[in-house]
């Protein structure tokens, strides 16, 4: 079994893994970080989105061995103690979730959209950028509102943590 070494949510991790292990399996099963979810097997749904070296990646489509040496951030890294990340706050404030299953991937994608497209996002941009994230509960209406508000709040300076 080959060895893998990476940083997850700021902590160094080493392990011996079955070579077929996907990054999402490693996070959920080896590290017990179950916030990242598996919703499909064809890379469509986005429930598994994490950040690898600062970019949104579908962790179901990456072998953990390929993530060797990288800096991985999951949903569990966004809040600092009791203080929620502004994007998380925005999802709650705008009812951007119902069953919660797509939510971690949706929030991680949202933060990535802001990182790439800035803090002033219009509806059309958000809807196009969400092509890789499925939600069956909300009809996306409130997710779009939440992301626009979260983007603005991320730029307001009061809380400048963005998942990197």
């Amino acid at each position, binding site marked *: 079994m080959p060895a893998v070494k990476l940083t997850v949510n700021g902590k160094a991790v080493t392990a011996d893994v079955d070579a077929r292990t996907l990054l999402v399996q490693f996070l959920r099963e080896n590290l017990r970080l*179950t916030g990242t979810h598996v919703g499909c097997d064809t890379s469509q749904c986005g429930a598994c989105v994490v950040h690898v070296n600062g970019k949104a990646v579908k962790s179901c489509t990456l072998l953990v061995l390929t993530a060797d040496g990288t800096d991985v951030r999951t949903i569990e890294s966004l809040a600092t103690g009791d203080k929620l990340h502004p994007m998380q706050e925005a999802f709650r404030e705008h009812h951007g979730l119902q*069953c919660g299953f797509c939510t971690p991937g949706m929030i991680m994608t949202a933060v990535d959209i802001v990182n790439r497209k800035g803090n002033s996002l219009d509806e059309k941009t958000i809807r196009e950028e969400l092509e890789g994230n499925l939600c069956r*509960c909300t*009809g996306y209406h409130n997710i*779009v509102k939440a992301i626009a508000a979260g983007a603005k709040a991320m730029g307001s300076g009061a809380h400048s943590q963005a998942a990197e």
Partner: protein
Amino acid sequence: MSATGIGAAVRRKEDFRFITGKGQYTDDVNRPGQAYIHFLRSPHAHAKIKSIDAKAAQAMPGVLAVLTGAQLAADKIGNLICGWMIHSKDGSPMKMAPHPAIVSAKACYVGDPVAVVVAETSAQAKDAAEKIKVDYEVLPAVADPAAAQSKGSPQIHEVAPSNTIYQWHLGDANAVDAAFKAAKHVSKLDILNNRLVPNAMEPRAAIGDYDTGSDSFTLWNTTQNPHVARLVISAFIGMAPEHKLRVIAPDVGGGFGSKIFIYPEEVVCLWASKKVGRPVKWVSDRVEAFLADAHGRDHVTHAEMAFDGDGKITALRAKTIANLGAYMSTFSSSVPTYLYATLLSGQYAIPQIYCEVDAVYTNTVPVDAYRGAGRPEATFVVERLVEVGARELGIDPADLRAKNFIAHFPHQTPVIMAYDAGDYHASLKKALELADYKGFGKRKREAERQGKLRGIGFSTYIEACGIAPSQAVGSLGCGVGLWESAEVRVNPTGSVEILTGCHSHGQGHETTFAQLAAERLGIPIETVSVVHGDTDKVQFGMGTYGSRSGAVGMSALVKALDKIEAKAKKVASYLLEAAENDIVFKDGKFTVAGTDKSAAWGDVTLNAYIAHKFSGAQLEPGLKEGAFYDPTNFTFPAGCHICEVEIDPSTGDTAIVNWTAVDDFGVVVNPMIVEGQVHGGIAQGVGQALLENAVYDKDGQLVTGSLMDYTMPRADNLPSFKVGTTVTKCPSNPLGIKGCGEAGAIAAPAAVINAVTDAIGSEDISMPATAQAVWSAIQKRNQSRQAAQ
């Protein structure tokens, strides 16, 4: 209205764990020593199983057991059931074929479980399953419900000649025939209500855990109704006595009906855990979900609507073939009968209605309730016929509807339902304003100048919800009652736990039920918690589906709170040394009427448990009350949805440019949550109308077998929605709630197709109206217009 009471848009209490990744879904639960199970599924739609050779599989690394249907039967594990008896016109009962959790004689659909492997890891179980040798004798298959009853089609089950499960009807056939003979105009439609895959984002999962020491089972399962699962698995499947089976539904990631049913997988996980002496876990792949989750809809219908010379509807008749798949799933029989035909009056005063339904077996996965369950199918029939009638008669579709609306309540329809209260004119009027219907002509002409086709479509829907009065459904064949339970436990320190037999898999009960209790008791909402989903904690409840949690679940809570208030006042009377009748309870305070003597909530609750101020002979200590509430009627949410589309004729691509929804849900507890339910329902309805289709080929192979081939609605397929409400209180429950969970999915498909057909000027299009279908319909229309010239 207080900031956290009924009617307030309280932000959800349950959100914290979901937005921080701390939810606990079934796959997040891990039992010490757990093993993993993989289901070997038939690759053939219809095949005899001649033999199964598991020797090579058993020898694979990590394998604990390879188990078959023969072993299941030998252990006397019973078959899965359908719990709603339907009789045919001739009085004979529905033909329910045996449905074992693992088949042994033959497989009847692609995905039918044929054997299972239990192993140390999921990968090892899958690797071993590939080594199982199954000798199949492939049989001809039939997948198309319209062909299932034909002479040439293979008979799937011995018990059902011509694959016919039942031939049911409702209404007065003779009176309807007479009305059609006398009609001035008849509109006709052939309708395919397309088959759908529910695709909740969380795949199904189960963990079966048998404990030798107590000879009892625990099941973690993605179920919408843990107590019903427990009852069926114990009493009908015979896994264990009911008191020896605990069912836990932790956080569940969406259901939409697909997680109501009792499926093979949870039964097998329980059985296997006893066989191997280890907890056994199963998590569905998405590909597996396509094959093995109950699908929705799949009706073939011919429908006709009769009009008199003034445009009044005089009759409606429909003949439907409903595909129930290879076996009868738990509620399947009710969906195309009592959840469908009984809504064929729509919002209209239609004097005569007759509906015939043939339910058939095919070699496809079982079909059962999916958001709306029968009511989207009914609404599509009625609302398409009315729209087509309006076009054929040259009457504005809003005007034709208004002319036919029911305006006096209660209104007895010819199809069992008696609508208690509503104001259909109010929702239509408000929707027309919000949608700027008057301005549509201008927008259409502007679009034409840009080379685009604009269309507008209505859906004035009604549904029967708040499922359901037990005696009523019992008399119609349902095997269970559909009441609901609630228990309120007040703690000595004054905090409150509400235990509800309902189950939240996205509906926000931890917030809405708390809003109700907090307002009633005058206590901070933070001090109220809601418990659901565990048969060890919560007394029997029927679960969540059929838009019932508000109307039925909250009514049970109100009854329990009534009892709490009564008991608390008794305790307060001893504490305040006053007559019980003189105690006034308001805003969390108990006062002796006409005095300034009072006691706070926390003092009274503490005294209830310390019991120093009264003797056991006078009053029992404690402050905990429960109630079971059985509704006296269905509820009837109704409303008007207006869809405006813009089609690019060169590609057939349909953009929804405006969506207006005005719904009457009676009293609304949390408008933010209610709007969210409407948004989600509309999205699923749009998905059915424009994008989604579960397709089996003629050999019963599922062609749309993954998210690569099955088009789920994405954010850029949908607009933002304009949502409003009108209110006529529900007269049949204490709070006046009608319910809202399914409305969007019920209303939307007809609104979309009415808009698309308006835009392209042709009725000749089926759901899903994909770009290809729309483009083809436009070409066909152009050709027939040229031919006509």
